[in-house]
């Protein structure tokens, strides 16, 4: 029925969490395979030879790489249950743009809060908060970015919440005080079982960041 579904992933990967959430929302049974990052297995190189990154969704032996592409794939194949993208083309376009914003801004700037130093780190912290405020503006009074229903942008964004503790500790700043609306949305999203079961423990994410810092020589 669902076919064979394998998710090649890493526990702390916010991109992998997106797919875990989506598969849970759709009630799809799958095999989870953990990559021991930063080391990468031959299987990963075989499944994603071009980018060599997790997550990779493998459906009936065919790999789909890049989390937002795999997210749309999951939504299209298992379209009957809990649709993530709206059906209206204009709303779909807006959802895709905002998911892109999450990758361009939240991810890139969030990364710099732990991997950069001095002025570059300070600038990244400031811009990171600004990006979250832009997202708060987009959310407005809606319960979710998807409107009344938890949707595509919510799935794309919520995994980063599990990284906030690492960003705050490494960057020495508090996100919640600046962006209370964002945190309220995050806590609301965490009440969904698909989310609470898929997100990594923030302490474990922090431990992973320390490993990455050592690996990349950031001190």
């Amino acid at each position, binding site marked *: 029925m669902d076919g064979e579904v394998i998710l090649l992933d890493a526990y702390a990967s916010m991109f992998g969490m997106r797919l875990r959430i989506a598969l849970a929302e759709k009630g799809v049974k799958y095999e989870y395979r953990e990559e021991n990052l930063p080391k990468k297995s031959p299987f990963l190189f075989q499944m994603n030879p*071009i980018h060599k990154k997790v997550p990779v969704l493998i459906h009936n032996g065919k790999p*789909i790489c890049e989390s937002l*592409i795999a997210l749309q794939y999951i939504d299209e194949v298992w379209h009957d249950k809990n649709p993530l993208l709206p059906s209206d*083309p*204009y709303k*779909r376009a807006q959802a*895709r743009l905002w998911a*892109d914003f999450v990758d361009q801004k939240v991810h890139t700037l969030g990364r710099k809060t732990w991997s950069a130093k001095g002025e570059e780190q300070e600038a990244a912290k400031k811009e990171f908060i600004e990006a979250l405020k*832009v997202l708060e503006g987009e959310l407005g009074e809606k319960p979710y970015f998807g409107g009344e229903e938890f949707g595509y942008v919510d799935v794309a964004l919520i995994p980063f919440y599990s990284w906030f503790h690492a960003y705050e500790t490494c960057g020495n700043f508090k996100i919640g005080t600046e962006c209370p609306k964002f945190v309220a949305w995050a806590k609301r999203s965490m009440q969904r079982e698909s989310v609470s079961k898929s997100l990594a423990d923030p302490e474990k994410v922090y431990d992973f960041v320390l490993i990455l810092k050592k690996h990349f020589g950031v001190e």
Partner: protein
Amino acid sequence: MAEEVKLFRTWSSPYALRIVWALKLKGIEYETIFEDLTNKSPSLLQYNPIHGKVPVLVHDGKPVCESLVILEYVDETWKHNPLLPQDPYEKSMARFWANFGDDKLMKSIWQLFIAHEKDQDVAAVAALENLKLVEEQLKGKKFFHGETIGYLDLAFGWIANIVSILEEIMSLKLVDGERFPHLSSWIQHFMDAPVIRDCWPPRDKMIIKFQVMRENYLAPATPK
């Protein structure tokens, strides 16, 4: 009531061309507004407040930004002559390679274009490797989409135009028939397609534009 479709673009942007082609393939009437990016119009800033970039498609007053997102919007709104494959896996592959084109291939070709002589060999290796991956996607097919032009052909359209302009300026052949027989053949078919060929920006203007850009990048290291 007739639909109102507007496209905000610059004369040279390869991203805007994707939309021009898509609208032509679907037979959609639209108004073009050419923008000068050094002096953006209030309308553009109103429709794309976050980035202020072109192209922007405005359909009945509602703006859509980012060329690949616009392509999907066009395909989902006007469903005849579909641009994307129907099968979810094939659709994912088209999206993946379009992203690869923009994120990896275009960047590596650009890096080669603006490289100083001493860095050119290394830059060329990356560009050629990426081109090879795209070449492999074409095997056995006339267009990336199959027998007809589709989303991925439009996404890769810049290869058929900009690459030959950069090659002329660099005096360096990247996509040659021997190393890239499928890509060379695709370029020919794509360039010859009636919907495509009438839309290219003036070549001489493009050469001047990119020549100036290259000089600006190379200038600082030039000894006085």
